[in-house]
């Protein structure tokens, strides 16, 4: 049954370029980018038990590095992507050492503080980041000579990267290391007594999540061809966290569903409501009350109940 659902979802992801106009194709591309970002955050929140409010750091820094390296120093997109991802991973490695000195609320506050520092720097270091004006005039890459400037080709590109991200993260959390990670999330003391090094397991996951956060940042800057300090803001981190929790933390499909929900609300509701965040809050409240584990686990339970068996 799960395979049928996966095939249906996979098949439906192939449809937008054939059925929808540019607006919807662009929206679908944005959902894919948000989904990669949410999947990377879910590694921390859902599988590692590390609730972070600073994950936008990796998206924003990767985007800024790519923007600077291409626009200011004239590097090609390939080199820029390598520099950008390497820089982001190095930053995640450093931030991980600091943040993982604490757990729970302490961890959350450290990640928030670190991201706020970056957000402040993006505003203040205007000689580098162009401050509140952001960096404009960026271009999209053309892998294998295929221009990504039209919505359809960009959508295919984003879909390929999102598929790779989904598969890579699925393999990661299903592996022996993934079992250790889930064990450390649930019973760190017991896992340490069994011979596992909880802090190193968390740190590796933190860096890996930073890597995929960086990948989503690259797609983000390619899509918008513009980068602004808001990409590093707490709002950016909180929206992703909201998506992960709403979709179902610790599930593989949940964060993508949650990210899509947040993005759709943002795009549609903001056209009609000035305070669209209020609607987002109400929807979130509804989900938490009706399906406390999130949309995907909630629907799994519902379908299992309708079929007359426990999930």
């Amino acid at each position, binding site marked *: 049954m799960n395979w049928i659902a996966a095939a249906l979802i996979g098949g439906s992801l192939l449809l937008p370029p054939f059925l929808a106009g540019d607006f919807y194709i662009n929206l679908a591309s944005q959902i894919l980018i948000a989904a990669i970002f949410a999947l990377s955050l879910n590694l921390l929140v859902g599988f590692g038990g590390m609730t972070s409010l600073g994950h936008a750091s990796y998206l924003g820094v990767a985007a800024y590095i790519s923007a600077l390296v291409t626009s200011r120093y004239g590097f090609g997109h390939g080199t820029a992507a390598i520099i950008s991802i390497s820089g982001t991973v190095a930053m995640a490695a450093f931030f991980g050492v600091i943040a993982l000195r604490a757990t729970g609320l302490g961890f959350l506050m450290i990640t928030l503080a670190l991201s706020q520092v970056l957000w402040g720097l993006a505003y203040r270091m205007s000689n580098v980041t162009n401050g509140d004006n952001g960096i404009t005039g960026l271009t999209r890459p053309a892998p294998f000579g295929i221009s990504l400037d039209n919505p359809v080709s960009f959508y295919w590109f984003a879909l390929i990267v999102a598929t790779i991200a989904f598969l890579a993260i699925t393999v990661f959390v299903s*592996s*022996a290391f993934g*079992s*250790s990670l889930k064990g450390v999330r649930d019973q760190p003391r017991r896992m*340490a*007594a*069994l*011979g596992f*090094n*909880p802090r190193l397991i968390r740190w590796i996951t933190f860096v890996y999540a930073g890597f995929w956060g960086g990948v989503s940042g690259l797609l983000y800057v390619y899509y918008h061809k513009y980068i602004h300090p808001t990409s590093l803001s707490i709002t950016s981190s909180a929206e992703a966290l909201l998506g992960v929790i709403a979709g179902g933390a610790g599930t593989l499909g949940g964060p993508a569903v949650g990210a899509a929900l947040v993005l759709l609300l943002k795009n549609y509701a903001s056209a009609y409501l000035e305070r669209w965040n209020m609607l987002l809050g109400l929807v979130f409240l509804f989900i938490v009350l009706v399906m406390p584990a999130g949309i995907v686990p909630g629907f799994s339970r519902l379908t299992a109940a309708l079929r007359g068996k426990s999930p």
Partner: protein
Amino acid sequence: MTGPALEVIGLRKAFGGLAVTQDVSLVVQLGERRLIIGPNGAGKTTLFNQISGDLRPNSGQIKLFGADITRLPPYKRAQRGLSRTYQIITLFAGDTLEHNVSLGLLGLRPSRWQTCWPMSHYPDIAAEARRALDAVGLLQLADHPISDIAYGERRRVELAVALAQRPRILLLDEPLAGLSNVERSTVKTLIASIPRETTVVMIEHDMDTALDLADTVTLLNYGRVIVDGARDVVVADERTREVYLGT
């Protein structure tokens, strides 16, 4: 290898102004069965937590097979052959019995770091986990989640996880607590069958059962060692009767 399996030298641990273990020293020889007794609040579990690395002592030294492990984290102690069970069961309730035991086996193998293959890729781990479950009489429940099994069975799974690691030294924290008479008898037989290559240190309140398993006994009270020595000597000691046996 000769020499003691475990040496605890002048161990002190205080929480604020309350000293829970004070100048605790004991030597456990290879293959020995040591029973640690004492009234509630005597510092027995705190002593275990310091030996396993869950708590860091304020002062003193812990040696495992001659090597100083006082400042080693718990996972490094586990890799040196120290396993333990907990007074409060800490299994993974949503996972199967086999998975719980497999995690214990994975913890001591380099494959715990690999990020490509699931645990099912290692049939030897699954086979060994099932052997360990068979040894505690729970093979038929191997595929059930922990949440489905009874308390006494969970105690046996705890033991299976620890024994699957083939420890050189095993710390058992009240392995008989909360068990029925039949279950006590089963777990007692299990503990008695642990090979002598494994040194066993055990905290237990059920003296009738536990004394049969012990070579030596240490009595703790208010965080201090009161009496320490051969089982019969400690049991016969006036101070043991006064502090613990109440006769």
